[in-house]
C-alpha cells in the first residue's frame, strides 16, 4: 500500500499542504502543521493506521478501508459523534462545525486511483511529504547505511 510519509526536518511550516488540501476538499483542510517549542514545524495528517482505533470505535461503522488502503469516512453514515476524534492517538479526525460530519484525510482517493500523488504531497515545496510504498523509506535508509558502511570499510 502506498502511503504518505514525512521527512519532518524538511518542513518549513509554510502550510502549503493545508491550503492545497482545503482547495481540494470543499474548503475543509484535513492536514495540520504543528509548531513545536514555538519554532519547529511538524506536518501532521492521518496515518491511515494498519489497525485503526477510529475504525474500531466508530459506533456506526462509518469508517472503512478503501480499495487503495486508506482509512476513509463514509459521510452518508457518519453521525458526527466525534468518537473517532476521541480515540485517535494523533488527534486527527475532527467534527466539522459546518456539515456536522467528521473531516479526515482520505489519502486523496480520487487522485490516487487516477495514478496521481495526494494533493498535499504534490503541493509541498520542500518534499517534506513523500508518497510511496511503506517500505520505501526503510529501503532507502538501509541502502544509505550500507553505503556508509562500505565507505567506512574501504577507509580502513
Amino acid at each position, binding site marked *: 500500500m502506498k502511503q504518505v510519509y514525512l521527512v519532518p526536518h524538511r518542513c518549513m511550516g509554510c502550510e502549503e499542504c493545508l491550503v492545497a488540501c482545503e482547495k481540494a476538499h470543499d474548503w475543509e483542510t484535513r492536514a495540520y502543521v504543528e509548531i513545536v*517549542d514555538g519554532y519547529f514545524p511538524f506536518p501532521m495528517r492521518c496515518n491511515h493506521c494498519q489497525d485503526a482505533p477510529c475504525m474500531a470505535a466508530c459506533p456506526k461503522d462509518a469508517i472503512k478501508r478503501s480499495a487503495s488502503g486508506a482509512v476513509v469516512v463514509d459521510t452518508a453514515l457518519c453521525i458526527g459523534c466525534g468518537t473517532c476524534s476521541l480515540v485517535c492517538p494523533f488527534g486527527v479526525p475532527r467534527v466539522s462545525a459546518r456539515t456536522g460530519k467528521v473531516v479526515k484525510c482520505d489519502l486523496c482517493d480520487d487522485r490516487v486511483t487516477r495514478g496521481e500523488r495526494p494533493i498535499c504531497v504534490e503541493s509541498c515545496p520542500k518534499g517534506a511529504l513523500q508518497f510511496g510504498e511503506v517500505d520505501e523509506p526503510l529501503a532507502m535508509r538501509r541502502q544509505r547505511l550500507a553505503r556508509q558502511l562500505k565507505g567506512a570499510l574501504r577507509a580502513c
Partner: protein
Amino acid sequence: MTATRVPVAAPDEPPPGPHVPRVVVFACNWCSYTAADLAGTTRLRMPAGFTVLRVMCSGRVDPLYILEALALGADAVLVTGCHPGDCHYSSGNVQARRRVDFVKQILDRLGLSGRLEMHHVSAAEAPRFQQLMTSAVERIERLGPSPLSAGCPVLPPNKRDAFCTVLRHIAGQLSVTPPEGTSIEEALVTEGFGEPEYDVDRCIGCGACAASCPQHNIEIVDADGTRTISRFHSRCVRCKTCEESCPVDALRVVPRFDLAAFLSEERRPALELPLVCCARCGQPVAPRRQIAQLGDAMNDHAVPREDTMLCAACQRRAHAAAMRRHMTAHRQAGGQT
C-alpha cells in the same frame, strides 16, 4: 396561550329550520384572505355558512385551534394558505400542511373524516376560493351537521394539556374509548407529530443528534464542566434524523404534542452531563459517559483514560513534540535523518 385563558362560551342554539353549515375558514392574510376579498369585490356568488378568520400565516394555525373550533360547534374547518414556495414567511404553509395532516389523522380515528381540509389559494384566485367554499359547504350538507354538541371545557394554560382536554372532550362525546391501559391521547396520536425525548440514563452526550439535525433544533453548550443539551422545540419538523443517528438509542421521537410554540427561540433544556476536560489546556473534550463507554468497542486498542484525556489539538501537539524529541535524540546519537 397565556396563563389566563378565557373560557369560550358555546354559541347560541341555531334557529330551528334547515341546517346551515358552519364552516370555519382560517385564511392567510397574504393570499387566501385577499382572495376572499377579491371574490367579494368581483361580486362572486358565495354560499352561506362559512366564517373567515384572518391569520397572519396559515402556519399560525395551531392544531388546538382546529380541535377547539370543532368542539365549539363548527361542522368543518378549512385552512387556506399560500401555494408551496410562496409563503410570506418562507415555510409557514408547509408547517400548516404538516399540522393539518396530523389533526386529520386524529379526526379519522375519531370518525370525523372529511371535516378538515387544507387548500393552497393565491391572492389572485378568487374564483377558486369561491369554488372551494361552495364545495366545502355542499360536502357538509351531504355529511350532515357535526355529531358534537357545541361546547368546550375550560382549558388549562399549558398547551399540551389544553390539547388533551379538548381531545378527551370530543372523544367522550363520540364515545370513543381507548384500549385498556392507554390514555385517549396515546390511542389517537400514534405517529407523525411528536417531539424528541432523551433517555436521560442512556444518553452519552456525544452530540450526534445536534450534528445531524437539519433544523439546528438541538443545541449543545459546554460550560463550567457540564454539557447542556437543549432543544428549540418549535423548530422540530419531526424528521426523526436524530433518532436514526443516535448511536446508543437514547433518543426517540415520541407521539406527543408540542405544537406551534409562542416563542420560537424558547430553549428547553433536555439534560446535563458532566464533561471531561483536557489534561493540558482545560478545554472540554467529551462527556464523561462517552469516554466511559469507549472501552466496549475498542477491542485491543488502548482506551483513552479520563484523567489523561487530551483534546485533539493537544493530542496533535503532544505527538509532534514527541516526534521532535525523537528526531533530536536520533541526531545526537549520530544518526542521519
